[in-house]
Structure formats: structure tokens, C-alpha cells
């Protein structure tokens, strides 16, 4: 991995990201932010969590630093490390430390994927101490008053082994996300991919068909993200059945029978 130089001021979002509120999530987030409480976004993949964070960063006029967690991510990837420059060692802040210093919003996506030692640095930041221990340089970094920590977590497909620990989850204000109801989801698709309402409507219907199959052959139904992808292909002139196959069915399963069934379902709609 190449180390990157982070300049938090580059992470301001200047144009309003389109976000369609589904409930009172915007108000709750704002209240949490005012009270310096960390936030946990729960919900299935592709239901608008990342988009919501971008929107909130824009609303609150704070830079947004997003870290996608993976199973090689360690605490020092978040906090920082030494580099050598011109024969001297130089300390380089990791994304979390940079956010803490600059008063940015730090969004740790899929936090349970990270190695367990990351919780050690998240915990003191997520309670009223609001400090980041920087072991390597023996410092304790106190968070800027504007700093905000948000993490996301998909309870659906994680195995028991990777469940979020109670001691972690009980530090956060939880916002539950789910796929929006049919009308809103249709509106999102129309907006994101510029397709006609009728087309968006059918795509939502198709999504519901796949969601009906969750647990009986599919691990997950089609997410809003996949619908947007299919709609973009359709907008570009691809036949709807082909678009659904490429953008949605193939993403959902590799099982031959299941694929056939899902493709038959989309073919029956268009």
C-alpha cells in the first residue's frame, strides 16, 4: 500500500449530493453531531449509507474522510506511521488522526471487517474522552470540537465471528437503514439515472421480486445501488432484460438455476 498525503481541506463537499431522506435520519444525525455523539449506520449493502454521509458532510460543512475497512486494516493504518524522508524519520498522520485534528467527519465503512486491534483506537474516541491514543509517538490527540466519528455495519451477512462487539456498539447512536419503500426508491432511480417513471417503477418491482427470494436461494435481494446501475445501462440504450441480467442478476448469484429464475423474472416484467 502506498501511503497517501491527506489534506483534509480537500475533502470538503461543495455541491449538494442528492439524498432522498427515508425517515428522520437527517434530524437525528444533526442532533448527534451537535452533541458530539458518534453514529453507527446499520443496514444492507447499497441502501444509501455512503450517500447519506456525503450529504451530511455537505450539510454540516465538514470535510468527509472515508475509510473502507478490510481484514488487513490495522490500527496504525488509521492512526499513522513513520516514513523516511531525506534520511530522517517523519511521522505521517493516518486518515483517522487527520480527521481528529482537522475536525472532519471520519466514516469507517464496514468496520467489523477491520482487525480487532482497531477497536482499541476507536473506543476512546467514541466515548466522552474523545481522544485518539497515538502509541507510536506517545501522544494522546484530543479531538477537535468539530470532529465526528461514524461507522457502518451490515448485520445481514456478517458471520457470528464478525459481529460487532457490545462494548463497541453501545457507544454509538444507531441509525437503521433499509431499502426505501417503492415510491421513494422509484424517485431515487429516476433522479440518479434519468429514466422514465414507468421504467423506474418496473425496476423497483423487479427488486422486490429478488427481495422475496432472500433466504430462499438468494443471500440478499437487489440493492438500490444495483437498480441505479441497471437504470443507467437502460438510459444508455441497453435492453432492460439485458441490463437487469448484467447489472443485477449476475451480481446476486452464481447458481445456474437461480440465475435462470431471476432472469425469467425480469423477462416477465418488461
Amino acid at each position, binding site marked *: *500500500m502506498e501511503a497517501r498525503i491527506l489534506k483534509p481541506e480537500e475533502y470538503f463537499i461543495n455541491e449538494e449530493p442528492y439524498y432522498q431522506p427515508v425517515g428522520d435520519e437527517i434530524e437525528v444525525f444533526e442532533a448527534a453531531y451537535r452533541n458530539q455523539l458518534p453514529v453507527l449506520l446499520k443496514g444492507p449493502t447499497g441502501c444509501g449509507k455512503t450517500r447519506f454521509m456525503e450529504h451530511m458532510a455537505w450539510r454540516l460543512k465538514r470535510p468527509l474522510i472515508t475509510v473502507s475497512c478490510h481484514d488487513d486494516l490495522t490500527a496504525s493504518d488509521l492512526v499513522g506511521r513513520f516514513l523516511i524522508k531525506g534520511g530522517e524519520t517523519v511521522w505521517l498522520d493516518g486518515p483517522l488522526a487527520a480527521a481528529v485534528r482537522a475536525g472532519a467527519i471520519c466514516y469507517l465503512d464496514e468496520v467489523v471487517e477491520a482487525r480487532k486491534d482497531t477497536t482499541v483506537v476507536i473506543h476512546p474516541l467514541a466515548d466522552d474522552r474523545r481522544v485518539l491514543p497515538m502509541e507510536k509517538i506517545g501522544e494522546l490527540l484530543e479531538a477537535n470540537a468539530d470532529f465526528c466519528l461514524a461507522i457502518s455495519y451490515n448485520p445481514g451477512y456478517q458471520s457470528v465471528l464478525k459481529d460487532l462487539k457490545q462494548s463497541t456498539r453501545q457507544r454509538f447512536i444507531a441509525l437503521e437503514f433499509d431499502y426505501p419503500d417503492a415510491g421513494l426508491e422509484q424517485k431515487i432511480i429516476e433522479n440518479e439515472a434519468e429514466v422514465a417513471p414507468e421504467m423506474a417503477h418496473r425496476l423497483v418491482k423487479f427488486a422486490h421480486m429478488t427481495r422475496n427470494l432472500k433466504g430462499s436461494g438468494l443471500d440478499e435481494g437487489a440493492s438500490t445501488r444495483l437498480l441505479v446501475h441497471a437504470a443507467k445501462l437502460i438510459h444508455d440504450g441497453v435492453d432492460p432484460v439485458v441490463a437487469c441480467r448484467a447489472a443485477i442478476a449476475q451480481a446476486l448469484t452464481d447458481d445456474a438455476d437461480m440465475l435462470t*429464475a431471476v432472469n425469467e423474472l425480469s423477462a*416477465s416484467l418488461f
Partner: protein
Amino acid sequence: MAPLTQLTADQIQPLLDDWFEVEFTFRNTGVLAAALAQMSAGEQAFVLDWTRRIASTHVEISFQFVEQSTRALSLMDERMIEAWVLQAMDIYDRSGLYPGLKVIREIDLFVRQGRERASGCVFEEEAGVLLPFVQGLSGRKLKVEQGDHTFTDSEVIFLPAVMAHLPDKQDNFKLYKAAVAHLWAQARFGTFRVDLEQYIAAHPTPDLALRCFHALESARLDACIARELPGLHREMALLREKLGDADVPDGWTSVTAGLTRREATAADALRLVDKVIGSRLPATSCYQGRLKPAEVTAVLEKRLQREQAQLRVTLKLIEDELKEWREDEEAPPGKFEVDKKPDMSVPEGFQIELLLDGKSIPIPDDVQDTMTSILQDLGDIPDEYLVPAGAGEYELKDYEEKRLDPEDVWGGTYHEEGAFLYHEWDFRRKHYRKDWCVVRELPAKPSHDGFADRVVIKYRRLLGSLRKTFEAMRDEDRLLKRQIYGDGVDIDAFVEAWADVHVGLEMSDRLFTRMHRDERNIAVMFMVDMSGSTKGWVNEAEREALVLMAESLETLGDSYAIYGFTGSSRKRCEIYRIKTFDEPYDDEVKARISGIEAGDYTRMGAAIRHLSHLLREVEARTKLLITLSDGKPEDYPDQYRGEYGVEDTRQALYEAHRDGIHAFCITIDEEGQDYLPHMYGAANYAVVKDVEKLPLKVSDIYKRITS
């Protein structure tokens, strides 16, 4: 390859004598040999090969096969003859000798069906697609099953075993799909909301009335499908044309015009029955099947009661849960209501919201399914459904289908409920016997006798060192040196680099140390031989070894499971749960290990298939299946003895391997036979002379697999 030479009758007869066990059966093989001698060399080879393979299953079938072989060759090509023979053997497996022989005798019937099958679709092959197809559609989740007629009872869609109305296979599949959609539409769009049974019973010409209603309803449902699934509707119209059913009698369209409106109901169709009775009806397409009002009524009555009970019991649970949050325990319980939000995108025209004291509460998934189903039957959720059940009012058990207990299979009549069916490989046929083995998972009998504690004391020294061995394999942070980036400075590298710079060399950028953690992510399944031959010291050794293993593995924190296997025939393969992956190693598990006793025979293939199936369900990067056995093949009764069992086991191991499972076998008896290395491969097999060595062996396997 040497060219085949034609054999003479004298050369053929001894072969037949041998395969047909003429010594004991006194069959006359002379005539057969003479007939075979007339065939070409290639035909002879083909027929003789199959004769031998069939004889390994049943001599009589093979004998009759040879009798028919000359005719068979004149009627069918070799591929089709193979299909014929395999079908006969499959049917023999499933239903016995007589039905099996019938297939061989009725060769003409097979030829006729064979033609159909070539372009037709077979239900068994398409069910894997049809089921998810119908379950993806909205509303109550229907099942699909093979039946004698095409119809639905409002919970199950019955379809014919073969669909062969059209000459093209693809079209026949579409016919299945059309049937599924049409029958789904009956359930979804309220065909059964009218009391058809009563209406028909009261009608002077019941059969005719039913036919008229069916035709009218089909027109209404067609319009529903056109609105809901336009793509499928187009396809169905094309199918009708291909079937020659597309034309409708004059005036039909205007009679049914009202039924194609969105608001039209089954009651509207019923009202039209007397108007069309006596006039010509459009043809019933094969996919439209038939209506069976009595079947529907029976299923519906049960369902209404069951779902009312389910809903009311769940509401009671919700109420109880909320009570715990309320301060005032005496306050009267809240009132449940449903609110309808208009939504024209669903057939009902509204979505349902559950309210408690006027406040919307989230609906759990299972409640949602029940409510959807009730809505589909009644068009509404009646008030009496929304009263939480009183204490003890319902015994939900009474409403569920009677579940048979896998444990008392042999108690009453034999059943396969709660059992797992697995294929078995028949190496002589070079084919699987379908759903051949019946595997049951049973709880192990615990024996709380302090056995595990005694083992720990007996081997305490050994355990000490074992723990160390295993600890050394724990997830360890390893310090990587000379890294491009890292958490610390690698002083050695730095000094070197510094020196390099001073003598004018380029400075290396590998100056850091970094902690790296290798997370082992393993799931191990121990499969313990509980067959009769392990009785005595081998059984004792297995149990001791398991305790030592468990104690050692606990230090690693890896997930592991222990299952025992035994059984007495293909219909009775037993798997005992000693420790599942989720269970902790506690007193109960220790008692179950102690309770392991020698049972009957073994069918290793079935056990491997079942335990691989369980392994497939766990999430782990590396999966191990370790068999503990005494390696004695004599156990195997009947046909599983000898090569057959060995080859099936090999095949089962191969299937496991394909799924990324590493299989190993450890035998405890030195006298283990040489067939085990043949099955597992020499590298994956070990003989362990004494129990103490066993955990070490496992740690070896671990190291090999993870490094």
C-alpha cells in the same frame, strides 16, 4: 487400441455363465450367446459391457436385458439404450425388482416416451428454476410439486411430470412457466375468494358451470398478468398461438370486456357463468390446467384457522414485549389496528400498516408473510384477527403439519422426515444412485462419568506439551523486517543505509519493521468411526484422543466440531452430534464424548457427504475433515463391502475436495488396511499407534495446511 474382434457363441457363453451365476441359477445362456454372436464386434462389446454392469446390480435385470438386446439395437441408438438401462436401474433402486424389469420388458413404451423426452421438459429438471421463479412473484409463497394434473390448491402448484405439448424444448419450458404464472395468478388475484365448491354443488349442470367459470376467470387473470407481468403475458399469447388455442369464439371478447378491468373480481366472473352457459367457450390451453374447488376449500379452511392463530399469538408476543417497557403495569393493554395506505402498484390497491394505539409499529418479517397471506384470502385483516391471543388459547403445534421425529423412524412406520438424502456412487454403473442413502442426525447420548477428567489427569504431562505445541500455532504477530513502510524503524537496515549513503551508494527504502498477523481461519470437523469393529480398545482410544484433541484445540480458539457415524443399511445411516461448531467444549460435550459407543456398520460415503455438507455451511478460509477410524473394511454389510464401498467413499471425498475441503484420515489400528491410503491418498493418511500421538498428528496436519 486393438480392433475389436467378433466373439463366437462359445466365447460368449462362459462370460454370461459367470455374470449370471449360472452355477446356482441354472439359467440357459446358450440361446443368448448364440444371439449375441450374430452382432457386430462393436455391438457385442457394448452389450456385454452393460450386461456385466447391470448384473452387478441385479442378475435378473441383466438377463432380461440380454434377451431384449437385439431388439433394442434395432430400435435405439447406443445413447438411448444407455438411458433405458439407467432408467430401469433407477426404478429398481427406488421401487424394486418388478417395476425395474417392467422398464426392460416394455421397450416400445420407452422408445415412444423417449421421443417425447427428447423435446419435452421433465419436471424434475426444471423444478430448480420454477420454484424460485414462483417465489419471486409477489404474495403468498407457493410451492411446486409434481402431480397428476396441472392445478393449485392455493398453497402448492401441481405440475405434470413431463411437458411435451410443443415440438421445441424451449417452448415446453415456457409452458411450465406459463402454468406456474397462471396458477399463481389464481391464488394472487382472488380466484378462490368465491365459494366455488358451494356454487358448483348447487348448480344444475356442475361440470359445465365449472368449465365456464374457468374460461371466464382465465380471461380475467390474463388481464391481471398483462398488467403485472407484461413480458410474460406476451410470451403466453405466443404459446397459445403455437398450441392453436389463440382464436376465441365470436362475441367472447365483448362478454369478458368487463372482466379485464382492474377492479374486476372472481365474483364478477361467477355472475357471468349463466350468461355464457350453452355458448361456445374458447379452448382451454394446457397450461391453464383445471380447477379443483374441493382441494382448495380443504386447504383454505385449515390455513384460515392456522394463520389467525399465528397472527394472534405473535401480537400477544409483541404486546408482552412492550409491557416490559411500560412503567404502569396496570394500564390496559393497547389496541392493535391496521391502517391501509393506498398503493395502486399492488393488486390489493393498498399497503398495510400495523398500528398500536394509533402509533405505527414495525412489522416483523414472519408477521408480514402471514398478513400478506390473510389479505390474499380475505381482502382485509378482520378485527377478530387483531386481538392478541389469550394465555393458553392456542397450541400453535396443533396447527403445524405434524412433524415426524427423526429419532423414532423405526418406532412406527418407516419415514424419511427430518432425514437427509444423499446420492451414492455405483462404480460399476459409473453413475450415482439417486437419493440412495438416508442420513439422520441424532443427539449423542451423554455419559456423565468423569471420563474426560480422568483422561486429563492420565495424560497431564502430555497435555502440557501439547498445549505448548498448539499455542505456538496461535495467531502470532510476526515482525517483518526491511519493509517499505511500517510502524517502526529497522535499526539494522537504517545503519546499513546510512553507511551506504556515506560511501555514495543509493539508499535503500526498505527501512521499516511492521507487525504482521497471520490469522488462521480454520474449521475442523472430526468424523469418528462408531462401527462395530471399534468396540473395545479402539473405541476407548478414540474417546481419549478426542478429549486430548479438544483440550489442545481449546488453546487455539479455532472452531471445531465432532460427529460420530454408524448405521446399518442405506436407509439407516446415523450421524451423532457430539459437538457442533457453535457449541462450547463444556461438561455436556465431555459427557457425550464419553458416551460414544460402538454401533453397527458404516457407510462412509454418506457420512462424508453429510459432514461436508455441514462444513460447507460454516464460514472459514480453511476447512478440514478429519476421520478417526480403525480402518477395518470388514464391517461393511451387503453390497457396500469391498470395492463398491471404497469407490463410493473415494467419490464422496472427491466431492468434498471439489468444495475446497481438505480430508484426512487417521487410523488407530496398526492393522489398518491398505485401502484407506487408496481413498485418501497416501499423503492424507496416517496410522497412529498410540493415542498420545494423535493430537500431534493433527497439529502436523494443521501446520502443513496453513503454511
